[in-house]
């Protein structure tokens, strides 16, 4: 396995670049094929939404694993507070493509375009103030019934803000049942100041506050899933908060193929004979037609004017 500037340091993986399980690693109870399907759907969603021309749209391609994994791991009664690039959470939690498209475009609901919340699905969207949803999630965790975890996510840029660091302090000091998932974008050509890259990793910083913290490679959906699942388990057992720092590789920058989490999981499934191009084609065709229909419905509604 050759290493490139694209390969993050100190980030754990269970699948190597070729999609093979590393020595001693197991899937656990993960249904890799079902997970794969959701990842493919998330990618299709992102590409379709990216064509809507939403204001300040931020693409999520390459960052799907932590989003879909949270949705798979959180049980129905548990809240997930997304924080940007997070439409895939709603899809994976079962929001219909039509409701999703209407909400994400701002046609339905009152969220900022690009954001989706739903009390029914227990999804909290971004706040006006950057990363303030983390503090709301902390409060929710503080008031949550025993045995449940609260999930919250943000990007690495947010990790220098008060909303992030004060939330870590609350989580540590009040032993909150929270799982904080940070999408740390990989900057192969050096990070700008606003990327908030300080020290070795966000996980390191969380650990120095006394928190359980892990850094995993976001190009490996298996490691992402299983690490978030461990954090959730700890939180539910009352063992306190966890931070999962996921090094994600935006596909926007055209990274090598093994940095694409979907391709990596595809290689894994393929090696086990669980993937076929037909399977892929069916999944893609299905989600795409649902999304096309949803967008058509949105356009019709917009032409007929008025708020829904």
């Amino acid at each position, binding site marked *: 396995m050759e290493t490139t500037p694209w390969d993050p340091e100190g980030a754990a993986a269970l699948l190597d670049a070729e999609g093979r399980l590393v020595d001693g690693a197991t899937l656990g109870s993960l249904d890799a094929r079902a997970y794969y399907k959701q990842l493919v759907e998330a990618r299709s969603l992102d590409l379709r939404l990216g064509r809507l021309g939403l204001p300040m749209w931020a693409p999520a391609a390459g960052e799907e694993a932590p989003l879909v994994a949270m949705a798979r791991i959180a049980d129905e009664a548990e809240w997930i507070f997304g924080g940007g690039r997070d439409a895939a959470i709603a899809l994976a939690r079962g929001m219909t493509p039509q409701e999703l498209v209407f909400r994400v475009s701002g046609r339905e609901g009152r969220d900022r375009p690009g954001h989706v*919340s739903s009390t029914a699905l227990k999804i909290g969207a971004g706040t006006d103030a950057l990363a*303030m*949803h983390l*503090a*709301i999630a902390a409060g929710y965790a503080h008031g949550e019934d025993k045995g449940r975890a609260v999930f919250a996510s943000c990007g690495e840029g947010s990790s220098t803000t008060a909303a992030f660091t*004060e939330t870590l302090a609350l989580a540590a000091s009040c032993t909150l049942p929270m799982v904080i998932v940070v999408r740390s974008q990989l900057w192969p050509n050096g990070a700008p100041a606003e990327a908030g890259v300080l020290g070795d990793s966000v996980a390191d910083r969380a650990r120095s506050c006394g928190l359980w913290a892990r850094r995993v490679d976001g190009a490996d959906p298996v490691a992402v899933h299983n690490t978030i699942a461990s954090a959730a388990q700890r939180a539910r057992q009352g063992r306190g908060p966890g931070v999962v720092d996921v090094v994600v590789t935006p596909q926007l920058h055209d990274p090598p193929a093994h940095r694409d989490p979907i391709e990596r999981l595809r290689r894994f499934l393929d090696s086990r004979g669980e993937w076929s191009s037909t399977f892929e084609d069916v999944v893609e065709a299905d989600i795409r037609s649902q999304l096309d229909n949803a967008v058509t419905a949105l356009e019709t509604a917009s032409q007929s004017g008025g708020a829904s």
Partner: protein
Amino acid sequence: MTVLEDLAARLADLLRDDDRRVLLGEDVADGGMLGLSKDVVADEALRERALSTPLTPTVLAAHAAGLAMAGRHPIVVLPGVEALLEGLAGLRDAAAWSWRSDDGVSTPLCFIAPCGPGLGLGGAATEAVEAVLARVSGLNVLCAGQAEEAGAWLRAAVEHAASEGPTVLLLPRTLLLSAPRGPLAHDLGRSAAASHRVRDGGRVTVFAWGAALDVALDAVTQTGVDAAVVDVGCLAPLDLSTLQAEARATGRLVIVHAGPRAGGVGAELSAHFADAAILHLDAPVLRVTGADAPVRPSDEGDAIPTVARVAEAITRSASY
């Protein structure tokens, strides 16, 4: 019993009455800076609902909003209302949360906020932070004006938050540290959202609240003018219909409040009448406020208008 001791006892009562209620604050588990949570901590059965936090001023309000979403009724004991300026961004998100989730999440969230001069520290104590809070969409702002009603306001504010959403109760430090003028009330006996005439009079109407209410009452007595005094009480949203009837009844309006004049809640009140009632008013709408320029900590008392200045304004208004 001092006002602070009464408040501490009432706070414990509130927790006893409804086990969804929790206290949140930096040192509530130690009794709190002003001792407000000491009766809660002294009661074995309540103690675990006193949730102390580290110093996290920026996320304070957002954290409390999350607790409210989770079904708790947090009562946040602040060191002072100034703390909400540090947490303003989160407070705005907290106050918007219920509106924004179109399927109606409720956020029964109450902040107990000492305000104004009293400790000799100056700074924000000399400002009308209330005017900033009153502008936060979705936030209710209440203000106690009489020391003997402080405990009643506490209960009223917590209940107001349960029905109306995020609520700040301002407790002027001068009231907290003063001797009550009458017996302590445990029930406000009126809606927390309503303004309340505390003195009848036919020649001039005086609107006042908070630390300025007693000043206004004393000023009326001093002038001998037949003036009505109204405790505005609820600063957001303003009880405009009642207030308008009060103002029209005399056609002469004097607005009295602590903190600077420019951009205060008094400005909105006055502007309202400059539109809705100008043709019914027989005199300029006068505002008597605290100092409009920054004040040295040792002069922090200048943030409350003096009886003499208020009396002069009342006399002037009466003479038009």
